[in-house]
Structure formats: C-alpha cells, structure tokens
C-alpha cells in the first residue's frame, strides 16, 4: 500500500482512475467479509456454517435470516457510520487524532441514553433522541472549551477539552447508574456502556437505519467539501466556504448517525479513530476517496469485530472490548510507524 503512494507519478498523466480500483477492491473485501460473517457463529458448531446444510436445516435458515443477517448488517452499518464520522471529525478539526469518542460525543450519548432508560423512555427512538441531544451537547461543549482554553495549540486544546467533557459525562452517567433500578435498568446500562449488538433484530435495525443511512449519505456527498474545510479557516474561507456554518452542518450529520446507532449498540470506541487512518493510507487523503474508503473499511472492520465477539467464546464478548483491543493495537502500530504525521 505504501509503495502505491510512493511510486513516482508517470509523466504528466497521474490520474484519478489510478485509484478507482482500490476503492472497488475495498468494497469487494467488505462484501466478502459480510458474507463470511453470516456463516460464522456457534451453530451447528463453533466456526463456519456449511452453506450446503441450509437446504436441509430449517433452524440454520431461520438463524441466518432472522438472527445473523440483521446483526451483520447492523455491524456493517455501525462500522460505516463510525468510520465516516471519524473521518469527518478529523477533517473538520484538521486533526488526525480526533474521533467522536474523543470529543465528548460518545460519553454524552451514553449519558443521554442512560438518562432516557432511567426515565422509563425505553423505545429506541427515545433513547436515540436523548443520546443525540447529549452527544451534540458534548461536542458543542468540547469545541467551545477548546476555543477558550489558554494552554497549548489547537490539537492539544481540543484533546484536553474532550477529556474534560468526557469525564464530566462519565461522572454524570455514574450518578444515573447510582439512581437506576439495580435489577431492571442497571444491567441494561452496564451492557450498553461496553457496547454490543446482541439481541438486535430487524425491528431495531429498521428503527435506526434511516437516520444512519441519511447521515452516511451526507458525509459521502461532503467528501470533497471536507478537503476544503480541512484547510485553515482563512484558506477555506478564501476558497468560498463558510467554514463555521459548513463544519457545524457536517458535524451535526455525523453526530446524528453516531447517536442513532449508539442507541442500539452502546459505546463502540476506536473504530472512528483508526479506520480513517487506514483508509487514507490506502487511497490517499482527498475526501473524494478517503470517505468512501472509510465507509467500506469501517463496515468490514466492525463486521469482523462483531463476528469475533460472538464466535470466539461460548459467552459473548462485548463488541466495544474487541474494537478497543484491535483498535489500540493498530493505533500503536500506526504511531510507531511513520504513517501518521501531525505537524504542529
């Protein structure tokens, strides 16, 4: 992959088409993994289900269509939204080290969802809505604080503000947990903060998919605009952008998608940080390519993580634990390598 980027361009005709196959290849890999994930599981025994038994085994068919298919699709959608939002966050803040989870968005959403659960609003849309409102509040608070901090450069201030806001919402979440019914609500909240897709079916998927898909649509369409917005304020302004307003719109779309899915999946960290980096390494930084590549890779990454989570052990491993494990490993590898450069 590195070599493809380092290759000197040939004469004066380096061209966009050169990259097109790479994105197509990413999508092909994503679909292949999706198909494999459908077959992966612990029925009839741990490992991959032999597609030939589908004709004879009705239980296998039912399992595939009503349990695994919605779950695999939810995992793919979650991965796509997290990665696309992560990429949007990184470009909007001109900072390759941010993701929704770093800026109070995930913790805000967690608090909002838990609050809704404790208040007895248990419908997915109510939980999503509350998660969305507090996610946006978390983002707004992080950005506002970073602007006012009198310490360090923009990147550092943003990370510090994110830490403060996330910690604030974590403590608020702890209060909610303290007040929660230990038998009915607390287990839900605990499961939710670790992240996971167990128990998701067509109905819950259908409830959150429209918002998630709309968010993905906006982020994909804004791919090239994000390249412009990733420049310094005065530069993007000089190119005819309204940096403040456009960034706010794109972030709102990203947060809406993340909050909708987070309401059913709980907090799934790291995917939003790590996947866009991998995408940029593979296809380049230009939003026209990094955005679709992030979407494909994010879908592939979460599909694999979810398959591992539900297949590896007899009991289910929380999804957030798997993504954090694989994500931190990849993050460390990226920082040890020369793939990420933050110039300050």
């Amino acid at each position, binding site marked *: 992959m590195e070599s493809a980027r380092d290759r000197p*361009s040939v004469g004066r005709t380096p061209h966009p088409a050169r990259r097109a196959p790479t994105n197509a290849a990413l999508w092909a890999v994503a679909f292949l993994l999706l198909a494999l994930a459908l077959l992966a599981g612990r029925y009839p025994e741990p490992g991959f289900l032999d597609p030939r038994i589908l004709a004879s085994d009705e239980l296998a068919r039912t399992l595939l269509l009503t349990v695994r298919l919605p779950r695999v699709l939810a995992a793919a959608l979650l991965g796509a939204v997290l990665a696309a939002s992560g990429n949007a966050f990184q470009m909007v803040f001109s900072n390759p080290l941010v993701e929704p989870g770093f800026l109070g968005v995930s913790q805000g959403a967690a608090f909002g969802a838990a609050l809704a659960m404790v208040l007895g609003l248990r419908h997915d849309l109510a939980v999503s809505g509350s998660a969305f409102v507090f996610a946006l509040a978390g983002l707004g608070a992080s950005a506002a604080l970073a602007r006012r901090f009198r310490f360090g450069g923009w990147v550092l201030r943003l990370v510090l503000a994110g830490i403060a806001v996330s910690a604030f919402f974590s403590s608020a979440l702890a209060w909610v947990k303290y007040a929660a019914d230990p038998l009915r609500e607390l287990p839900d909240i605990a499961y939710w903060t670790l992240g996971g897709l167990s128990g998701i079916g067509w109905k819950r998927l259908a409830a959150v998919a429209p918002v998630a898909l709309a968010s993905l649509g906006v982020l994909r369409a804004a791919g090239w*605009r994000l390249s412009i917005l990733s420049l310094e304020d005065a530069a993007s302004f000089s190119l005819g952008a309204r940096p403040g307003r456009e960034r706010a719109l794109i972030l709102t779309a990203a947060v809406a998608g993340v909050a909708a899915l987070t309401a059913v999946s709980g907090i799934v960290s790291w995917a939003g940080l790590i996947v866009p980096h991998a995408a*940029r390494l593979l296809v380049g930084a230009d939003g026209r390519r990094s955005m679709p590549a992030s979407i494909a890779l994010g879908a592939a990454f979460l599909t694999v993580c979810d398959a591992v989570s539900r297949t590896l052990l007899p009991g289910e491993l929380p999804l957030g634990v798997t993504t954090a494990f694989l994500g931190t490993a990849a993050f460390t590898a990226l920082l040890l390598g020369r793939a990420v450069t933050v110039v300050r």
Partner: protein
Amino acid sequence: MLEYRDVHLRYPEGDRDAVSGFSLSVPEGSVLALLGPNGSGKSTLLLAALGWMRPRSGEVLLAGRPASSWPPGERARKAAYLSQIERISFTYEAREFVLMGRAPHLAPLAEPDARDEERARAALDALGIGDFAGRPVTALSGGELQLVRLARCLVQEAPLVLLDEPTAALDPANALRVAQALAALAREGRTVVFSTHDAALAAYAADSVVLIREGRLLATGSAGETLVPGLLSKTFSVPFGISGAPSPFLQAGAGPTGDRRSPPPTGSSIPGAPGDRGSGPSPR
C-alpha cells in the same frame, strides 16, 4: 478593483486599532506592494480585502462592493488569497491540493471534473512544478510548498490576488521563483497586492509601493519614489543605507518583468533609480 476608504480595523482581542484611517485605491492590473515592519498592519489590510475582517469604520470595496458583503462563492471568484504560512494536516497530493482552488467555481457538494483537473495540471506546469503533481504536500520543502499554494491561487482564476509575505520564509532561489510567478500573474493582467518587509522584492515585482507604519499609510508612489533611504528608515525605524550586497532580484531583474519595469540598478539592493512607471495608487 480594490479600494480602502478611511478604514479602521481592530482584532477582537486587541485594545487598539491594527489599522487606522487607511485610504487607498488599487487600480485594475497593477501590482502593489504593502511594505512595512512586522505588526504594521499589512496582513490585516489583506484580510480586510478578503472580507475576512470587517472594518470598525470606513469601507473596503472589492469590485465596487464592501468585501465582507459578497456571497462567499462570488467573492472567491473575485479575490484569491495566500496566507503567510499554512498548516496542512493531511497528506494531499500536490495536484489534489491545487484542485481545491476550483472550489469557488463549483456548487457546494459538486466535485471537480476532468477539466478542473486539467486546469490544476496546467497551473503546476505554468509554475514549472509539474513534476510535483503526485507528491504529498507535507513532504515538500518550504519553497516548493509556496509554489504549490500559488498554483492553487492561479486555478482560482480570480482577477485580484492577495499575497501575505509570499517570500518571507524562503531562501533566495525560491524567493526569486515566487517573485517571478508573481510577475507572471501581473503579465496576465491580474491585479496583485502583496505584503512584504523586503524592499528589494518590492522593487523587483511592484508597480507601486505603499509604506506602512503602525497601521497608518506613510507614503505611496512608484518604487523609485518610495524606496529611498529616508522613507525606509522612517518606516522601519532603523537607518537604511544603500549597500553593494548582492541580491537575486538584481540578476534576474530583466527577466520576467523586464518589459514592465526597469531592473534595479546594479550594485544596489534598494534601488532609488527613476524610470519606474509612476502609475501609483492614488492616496485619498
């Protein structure tokens, strides 16, 4: 093309005006140097011309209308701007970076097409850096990056180009390349306004010079009229003399702009020779 009318500018966090009572009219097709020490208000004047800063009082007219009142896309087709330094966080290839200059010509969510790509390539070629097309901008040297950024201004195809200290961080060879590119812009008939504290660059590239000190216009006129020890000493608060120090702008003087301006006299880094066209801006 650009007109300042008794402009007062102040930064939100500032307790005094960065620019006060500044009036100037920049005629179409001219190349104007804003010459002054650090902190004299040069950059502020450029940001006001871009519409990024609104004057506290007075008016900055871009193509006959207050600069900050233009719709963003239209304004970006009238004026291109190059800041002094630009932090770039992502490894865009040079051609992708230059292509961003096409944004003002496209609808908000539209993507550039093959013709835009062609223009970006032509701009890189025009500056003699076609070979950089596929290189990541984060891997370019300061001089190379400055040329790539200039190429982004070129593809913006705006009649007015505002450049903040375009050669400040460059070595002589790169400074000369940028200065030549600047002169080429002028030959195409664009209006160029650049800030600098380098009198030799002003002499080399500008039709007219505005001397600025502490946010106020000190003097204006042709290079010959303004770049003289007395005025420069007053502008920069240090005594100026004429030395025999060599400068890249001397040897190359006759090159790109030979037909427009007389080269500075040999043996002087600060020419005071008459012969420059006196088509200076009209102070008001």
